């Protein structure tokens, strides 16, 4: 069971308090009517499914209820960073290098 840090509560808690909500930093287009069909399908369905370092959305659903983001190595399950929703996407390559990947 993963150990997850909530950047709002600022505590580490067991995975059972959280829900994973998939890939992070996929913004809903501000004016969807201006998107092509392909762009909309890309937004709806296409995900990287990364093997390795990936940014994910998590929600502290049985705690504060807030959404936040986390960078996780999907191979080892090690987390490299936790940050609040709205903060910019970190440099994943730099994080990977830092973690010795």
């Amino acid at each position, binding site marked *: 069971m993963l*150990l997850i840090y909530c950047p709002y509560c600022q505590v580490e808690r067991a995975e059972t308090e959280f829900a994973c909500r998939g890939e992070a930093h996929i913004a809903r287009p501000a*004016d969807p009517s201006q998107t092509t*069909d392909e762009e909309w399908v890309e937004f*709806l369905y296409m995900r990287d499914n990364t093997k390795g370092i990936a940014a994910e959305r998590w*929600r502290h*659903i049985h705690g504060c209820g807030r*959404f936040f983001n986390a960078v996780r190595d999907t191979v080892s399950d090690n987390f490299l960073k936790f940050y609040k929703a*709205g903060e910019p996407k970190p440099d994943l390559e730099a994080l990977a290098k830092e973690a010795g990947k």
Partner: protein
Amino acid sequence: MSQPFRTEKGGRIDRAEQLTFTFDGEEMQGHKGDTLASALLANGVHLVGRSFKYHRPRGILTAGSEEPNALVGVYRNGDQTPNLRATQVELYRGLEAVSQNRFPSLGFDIGAVNDLLSPLFPAGFYYKTFMWPHAFWDRVYEPIIRSAAGLGKPPKNPDHDFYGNIYAHCDVLVVGSGPTGLAAALAAAETGAKVMLVDEQAEFGGSLLSEAGASIDGKDPAEFVAETIAKLAAMDNVTLLPRTTAFGYFAHNYISLAERVTEHLPTPDPKLPRERLWQVRAKEVVIAAGAIERPMVFPENDRPGILLADAGRTYLNRYGVKVGHKVLVATACDSAWQAAFDLADHGVDVAAIVDMRETPPESLMSIAEARGIRVEAGCVVTGTLGRKRVKGALLGRMMTSGQVASGGQIDCDALLMSGGWTPTVSLYSQSRGKVVWDADKGAYVPGRSVQKERSAGGAKGLYGLQATLEDGYAAGEEAAKTATGKSAKVTYVSASGGEAGSGGILGALPHDRNASRVKAFVDYQNDVTAKDVKLAVREGMQSIEHIKRYTTTGMATDQGRLSNMNALEIASGALQKPMTDVGLTTFRQPYTPTTFGLFAGISRGDFFDPVRKTPSHDWVVENGGVFEDVSQWKRAWYFPKSGEDMHAAVARECKTARESVGLFDASTLGKIEIVGPDAAEFLERMYTNPWKKLAPGRCRYGLLLNDAGFITDDGVIGRLAEDRFHVTTTTGGAPSVFATMEDYLQTEWPDLDVWITSTTEQFAVAAVQGPKAREVIAPFIEGLDLSADAFPHMSVKEATFCGVPCRLFRISFTGELGFEINVPRRHGKMMWETLAKEIEKHNGTVYGTETMHVLRAEKGYIIVGQDTDGTVTPQDAGMTWAIGKKKFDFVGKRGLARPDLVADGRKQLVGLLTKDPKVKLEEGAQITTAEQPATGTPAEGHVTSSYYSPALDRTIALAIVKNGHALEGKTLYVPMPTGSIPVEVTGTVFYDKEGARINV
């Protein structure tokens, strides 16, 4: 003497306390401190079971949790727990054990004919035999295989034991309490770190408990154990858990432990759980799981009386039991010699030491000579004699050519064997570490640590008392320092004796027998022989993963801890590839078999899933209502009067509601309060409908899509004030709608000033529906003019009900005049009982969910999730009226414009009327254009709702049908096993099409 194989003295058993137990009904004696296995051996019983496939007689092979043969059932309170390893079952007074997988008796087993028929059961037999003919599977193969193969019988009754659960955190978790684990725990504890020490055995000490002739700190090893445990027990920062198996190593140093709390007691305290699940988060882990001995793969290596050498030594030194009176020791390594020496020292006749090595170490040879033990060096066992007990062994002399020459026969009543040692890397492997081959040690050992753990001692292939102690201290110190940053001066103690020695062998041993006729077992529990592994390779299996599954080697409860290395070597030989190229299977959780009860814990019966009850629950029970489960809710389904079946009750409820009035508990509907300056804007973006112009005091039906454009939920939303909305959702959809709203609000539109709160549990809701609804509620409502002009359909106002504040909605899910009264939940019972009494005055009825379904279907109101399935758009459902055409955006708007969602040929919601008004369609039934469609014809759609409609006195149905909206008036078919049912496509509103009844 009742225990003919008990030693005169020695061992850790309490000789003063004699315990009576039974095995297959036969009464025997043992001592406190015995396992069932050691007590059976003390009574001369080796034959304890029949093998899985061939039903061959099998005896006790090991003294630990890896035991493959001695699986027994133990009775308690009239129920049997099957498949317990006799080597782990602690003896208690009155213990009742039985053997398994034999009929009619252990001594004479009809299934043993399988052994003679073994050419019929080759490797891959499951795949080959059951391929053809298909029809034979159910009637022939499965019943025969199920009755012939297998282990113990599952208990028939529900588990009457209960199970505990506990969470724990520690700095250092030490798994295993042999020399390495004890030293590690002591070193870590002395730094002040919070330490947990666990061991699967009843007593701490591991191999130290069966060590003879060695000393630690000048003391007997067992004394060292006692002193160390006493020291640890006195420390506040140490938790000691014997009888506790670390069975699972999961992500982020999360380790699951199974503690057996009462199973070893003759009369357990009923307040204590049978087992306790510990869920431990450890900062650092020391894996001190030791190593286990490998069997030697020679023909007939499975006869009762053949044991691993170290097991023989354990039974002797720890339990005071001689495995035989005349014992042959077969080995290829030094450590087994010590077993022979210890036996000789207890006066046991050692028939010979048969060592495959041409020149065993001189030091050992001289000790053997001093004790007068015959040594056959450069020799191998090529077979054994006896059936229910080994009677002798065939010897072969190894020649330089690699051939084996017959070397005669030696009589014995027990045979101890050792092919060397295999480090126990299970937990390391579970932690996702990759083992590496160590050619010097001839073993796979842990490689790089992936999690915060280190293996120490035997678990990493390090042997010998002094070396393992030192490694343990170092590992404990290092783990504590890493976890806490603290260190302390740790006193290392030194040991003498207990040297490691060298040697070992892998794979099938050479022999001079007819290879096609002999069986040399690799995996005892699954009855896999060396021949099977070779056959698998001949039949094309290349990877060890395939060989494993084809032969089932390594798939028994020990996960191949005993067999993997031998199987690998045999496969490598057959594949003519180096062993390291053949691959290695991965050890998984659990380390040893773990009960379902442990995982279930208290989550059984009422605790399996929470039950949610509405405020009318007790009234419904008292008034004979029948419940149905809707997600976790208990909802009243229908209210049969005496003599009524469901059909009659529902018909009466429907009729009464339409003619006078009905009362329905709608408390389960999801409710969400949306508050804030941007509340209307938020709803505008979430729902398809427009909200900004909705006046306070008015309601609107809201349709919720996902961004793909498909309907996900619906419900009425009332505007209580400019900045406050009362949203209702479907019963089942409440949590997901709330989560979706939070998601959009927090992550897409954080600029909106809105709070959303789930209020499902805050309100009790009574729906009063029917022409007399106004008269029913009027006496109790204050502060509101209920007249049609002042409070028209789709209104909401705050008022009081019997003096209690309420939110009153004028809405209808029946097509009749209707009100829904929301009161604080604590007043729900009062409201329900008040209204239930009142409707009687109007010849009204209470009604349940079934009537609710019929009434809404008569009006063509959809149920999301029943009439929609996640691929239905508002257009498909004929609900384009619910879409705000002028809106800039809403969730799903862009999705609805996708080409596939506007294309021709979509399945659309329609009504269906059977040509015969009495025929009711099956929900889910497929719909076709042809009356008798050819096999393979795709369906045009399916029936989503189907009822008998009392208002129409005929059946009605809703369905989704390809291009359904264009088919109105056309005939389609619903082919059923009893014949094809013709149906006419209609609109979805069956009753009061103009909607006059609702606006009164």
